[in-house]
């Protein structure tokens, strides 16, 4: 923007207005688009209204001749296009207004563009973040419903909730759902329900409609109000080509009332199934436990265990008893035998001892020896006598021979050994003769030779 130097000559407001009027006249006519703010038909038949955008507004007047053709006044908040012929100045009031010949609703594309811009801001502010959205209660004590009074949406949502969950408790707060007052009405209704602690979830419901009809549900004020609520909101807006902005801000959104019901109440059918399931499992387990318990008792049932115990003990006693009985019978037999053997040995020894009679044989032997000796002595006598007899028979004296000896004892064998006068002894039977030789007569012849 370029700076123009301020003119040095001061001008009056009237002069200024004249110059403004001249400039505006140069501007000529055109079409302005804006949101309708205050809009009323004066008793004169003229229509006065303001068109505004976010930064400015401009007053418009539709003279009676044109106003009569407009049957339905645009509603505040409605976006319209107004064709104006010129800009009229009101120097006394210090204002201007556009002289409008005709009005029409703004185009859908434009509406959508604006909705889009709003969403962009909402996203930028983080209001669509899933993280900041409150969780939905599973069993809300009470469900809030914001919808148009007597609308199909109301009936549909109620039916869907109760079909799904008959005990559901619902608080309905009716609101305007289209037109310039809809946003405020909806925000008010939401706030009212949010204030009720029993209401734990709020359904915002409306049937389908044109883009323009549904504009309040994309309205930035409504969206920010929803985000600010402590109670989670579920939106259930009818079929549209594009989801309204409130769907993005809400905790959850449903395309149909049935889906909304699913989001806010549990299914009675499912609950019944869960209940049935729990009971079935419980009963099954209980029966199972009883069966198991009965089986444990059966397993531990007292069998006739005692018989074996007594039986084994009895056989042990019997076995030991048999040994005792055997011992009773044989305790002394071996000893008795030993004693008898001992006694027998004594008797044998007694018998074997030498008796006096044992010497009888010896005595007899001695006697025999004596007898033999006596006999031998007798025999000795006989032998002696025999020998004596033999000897005597050889004795020459017995046969009449004599033996002549010299005095020295020498036997005289030859007369030549003797001389007369010599003394000799002559041995004869019966004795010895001493004699003297008287004469010697030698033999002439040997008589025996």
């Amino acid at each position, binding site marked *: 923007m370029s700076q123009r130097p301020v003119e040095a000559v001061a001008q009056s407001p009237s002069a200024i207005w004249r110059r403004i009027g001249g400039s505006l006249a140069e501007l000529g006519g055109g079409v302005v688009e804006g949101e309708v703010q205050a809009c009323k038909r004066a008793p004169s038949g003229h229509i006065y209204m303001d068109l505004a955008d976010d930064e400015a507004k401009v007053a418009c007047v539709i003279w009676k001749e044109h106003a009569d053709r407009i049957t339905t006044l645009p509603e505040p908040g409605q976006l319209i296009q107004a064709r104006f012929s010129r800009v009229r100045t009101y120097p006394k009031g210090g204002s201007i207004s556009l002289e409008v010949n005709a009005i029409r609703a703004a185009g859908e594309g434009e509406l959508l563009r604006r909705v889009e811009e709003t969403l962009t801001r909402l996203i930028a502010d983080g209001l669509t973040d899933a993280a900041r959205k409150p969780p939905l209660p599973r069993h809300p004590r009470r469900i809030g419903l914001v919808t148009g009074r007597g609308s199909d949406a109301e009936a549909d949502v109620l039916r869907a909730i109760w079909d799904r969950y008959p005990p559901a408790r619902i608080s309905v707060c*009716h609101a305007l759902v289209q037109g310039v007052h809809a946003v405020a009405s909806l925000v008010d209704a939401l706030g009212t329900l949010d204030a009720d602690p029993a209401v734990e979830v709020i359904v915002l419901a409306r049937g389908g409609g044109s883009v323009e009809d549904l504009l309040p549900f994309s309205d930035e004020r409504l969206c920010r109000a929803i985000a600010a609520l402590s109670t989670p909101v579920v939106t259930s807006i009818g079929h549209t080509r594009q989801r309204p902005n409130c769907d993005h801000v809400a905790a959850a959104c449903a395309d149909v009332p049935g889906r909304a019901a699913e989001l806010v109440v549990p299914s009675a059918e499912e609950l019944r199934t869960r209940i049935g399931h729990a009971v079935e499992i419980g009963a099954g387990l209980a029966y199972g436990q009883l069966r198991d318990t009965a089986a444990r008792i059966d397993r531990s049932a007292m069998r006739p265990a005692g018989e074996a115990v007594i039986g084994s003990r009895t056989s042990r006693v019997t076995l030991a008893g048999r040994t005792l009985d055997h011992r009773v019978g044989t305790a002394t037999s071996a000893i008795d035998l030993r004693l008898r053997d001992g006694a027998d040995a004594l008797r044998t020894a007694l018998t074997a001892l030498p008796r006096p009679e044992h010497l009888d044989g010896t005595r007899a032997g001695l006697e025999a020896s004596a007898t033999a000796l006596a006999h031998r002595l007798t025999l000795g006598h006989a032998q002696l006598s025999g020998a004596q007899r033999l000897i005597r028979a050889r004795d020459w004296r017995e046969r009449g021979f004599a033996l002549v000896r010299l005095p020295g004892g020498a036997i005289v064998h030859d007369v030549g050994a003797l001389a007369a006068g010599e003394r000799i002894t002559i041995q004869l039977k019966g004795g010895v003769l001493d004699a003297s030789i008287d004469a010697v007569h030698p033999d002439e012849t040997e008589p025996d030779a």
Partner: protein
Amino acid sequence: MTEPQHVTFEKGLARLEEIAERLGEAELSVEETIRLLREGKGLEQALRAYLETAERDLQEIEAGRGLTTFVIDRPTDA
């Protein structure tokens, strides 16, 4: 018969499911099993009856700041 026990649906259902779970525990006594089953079956009856509820609770609430200045021109729901 003892006094009926008051319980909310949620607590009742939670209790029922807790009972089913407890019945699966090994160290449960027979006595306790029977007691739990008696309670569970009682709960089942009550919960089922509750779900069958016929009377519907609907409350209409007027918005707090009654916008009496509305120009009433109710659009028809499409």
